[in-house]
């Protein structure tokens, strides 16, 4: 954000800040989620009986009987791998597009950027077939591989790297570094904020991914949290028989890692979106 932000802000029509009222509005906005977390600590009988009875039992049941510990592990593995491999692949490509003028380079870059416009659902059936043929359905690889290419991350990092003075690269080359060393020792350290923002986005996007795991996974012990939660919710779809406190415990398990991370890195997230929007 630019230093003149505050000047601009005061000039824009603003209603007077109403302190506590504004806070209340924020809480009201989030109330369904906040209440669902509260509900997850209620016994089912107390919830339906309208009384209050604090318990951790829903979490024990979700983690134990309904295997959410396993789903959590699956989500961590898949999202972590997609983020690390995705960042590596995108950063390397971004470096090539930002620093080299090579035959076919423009065409390749266009092919990368064009993926931003391509609706992902057209690849659903063919990717399912590819992985089935490779015997990778119901495996971590099957969840990870199709999610790795990220055109936006490559595009975004290329813009960022282009802003880094070439003199830095050249100094390193003079010292006898090769291209890989320049990328790793010069470009990556300077690009850290951008890489971090992209990493957060890839992780969150993959953590919340639903349709692909739904398609690629049939075995229960390979479910990610999203699929596990959707299935748990649907075990008893009739209105009256849903064990809402249990379902909300599962939902809280699904939300919580991102929620906790959110408070730590909100600034990076917001900055990432803003950098991406003002191209």
């Amino acid at each position, binding site marked *: 954000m630019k230093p003149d932000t505050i000047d*601009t802000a005061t000039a824009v029509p603003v209603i007077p800040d109403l302190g506590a009222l504004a806070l209340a509005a924020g809480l009201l906005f989030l109330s*369904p989620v906040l209440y669902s977390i509260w509900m997850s600590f209620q016994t089912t009988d107390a919830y339906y009986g309208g009384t209050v009875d604090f318990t951790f039992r829903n979490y024990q049941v979700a983690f134990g009987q309904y295997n959410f510990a396993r789903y959590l592990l699956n989500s961590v593995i898949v999202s972590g791998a997609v983020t690390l491999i995705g960042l590596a692949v995108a950063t*390397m490509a971004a470096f*090539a597009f930002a620093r080299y003028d090579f035959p076919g380079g423009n065409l390749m870059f266009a092919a990368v950027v064009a993926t931003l416009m391509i609706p992902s659902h057209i690849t659903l059936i*063919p990717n399912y077939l590819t992985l089935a043929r490779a015997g990778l359905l119901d495996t971590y690889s099957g969840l990870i591989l199709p999610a790795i290419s990220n055109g936006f991350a490559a595009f975004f990092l290329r813009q960022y790297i282009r802003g880094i003075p070439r003199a830095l690269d050249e100094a390193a080359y003079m010292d006898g570094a090769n291209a890989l060393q320049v990328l790793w020792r010069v470009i990556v350290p300077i690009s850290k904020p951008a890489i971090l923002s992209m990493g957060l986005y890839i992780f969150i996007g993959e953590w*919340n991914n639903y349709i692909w795991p739904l398609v690629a996974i049939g075995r229960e012990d390979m479910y990610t949290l999203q699929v596990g939660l959707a299935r748990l919710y649907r075990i008893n779809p009739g209105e009256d028989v849903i064990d809402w406190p249990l379902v909300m415990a599962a939902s809280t398990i699904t939300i919580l890692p991102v929620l906790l991370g959110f408070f730590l890195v909100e600034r990076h997230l917001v900055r990432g979106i803003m950098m991406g929007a003002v191209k």
Partner: protein
Amino acid sequence: MLRRLTPYLFALPLLGFIAVFTYVPIVTSVNLSFREWDFLSPTKPWVGLDNYRLLLDSREFWNALRVSAVFTVISVPIRLGLALLIATRLMRETGVSRVIRGALFLPSVTSTVAIGVVFSWVFSTDWGMMNGLLQLLGLGKVPWMQDPQLALGVLIFVNTWKQLGYDIIIYLAGLQAIPTELYDAASVDGGRRFHVFRRITVPLVMPTTYFLLVVSVIDAFQVFTIVDVMTHGGPAGATDMLVNMLYRVGFTLFDIGLGSALAVLLFIILIALALLKSRVIGRRVHYEA
């Protein structure tokens, strides 16, 4: 020699993944859309345009297209309008505005499945938060998810609730790019608040609005998760949208040809919308952020 190969070596991994999981699949989809296949049988006979004809003759496809269009046409203006109004009020970097920004932004990074589950509770007839509030006000229960129009309305509400914060952040970026002097001039002239908003803010933030329009229309046409979790397309097809139909045809009915034809049509619709808008953007944008 090696020096010449360097950029290719760096770009290759990404391009390999994109080729295998994006570009080849597009060709495969088009090919499969002209065939009849159920995942299992050893042959995939060529049936020409039959799948497309079947789709275009079916009430299901037109219903899904209509519901997707209605969802888009209602939800996008609500999202953008609300986001711009709120963003102009959150410009100041005070503690309070930061709290509100955080609260509004949070849902956009939260699991859509979990949001779908939580709001299924909020709008459930007997135990839900909405009907609980209505009863406090002395009003009767509303069957939110059982009424066709209300169910679509609920999905639009939930989608707006989830995406609003993202739109607001983008608008904040756009608003900060507007030169301060314009507002100074307006306030010297004694411009009233609404006037300033209409004559200065709205036109100058146009590039951001077009960007969000592209993103949110494409988004809206691809909605799947909240529909799958909350309504499954029901009641009576009232919330059955294009991607939902695609999933059902492909992965529960196992009609690969028909599913592929649907995917190709969705692809064409979205590319057409994107191209149409980039032409409009090219013509209409007079202020570059």
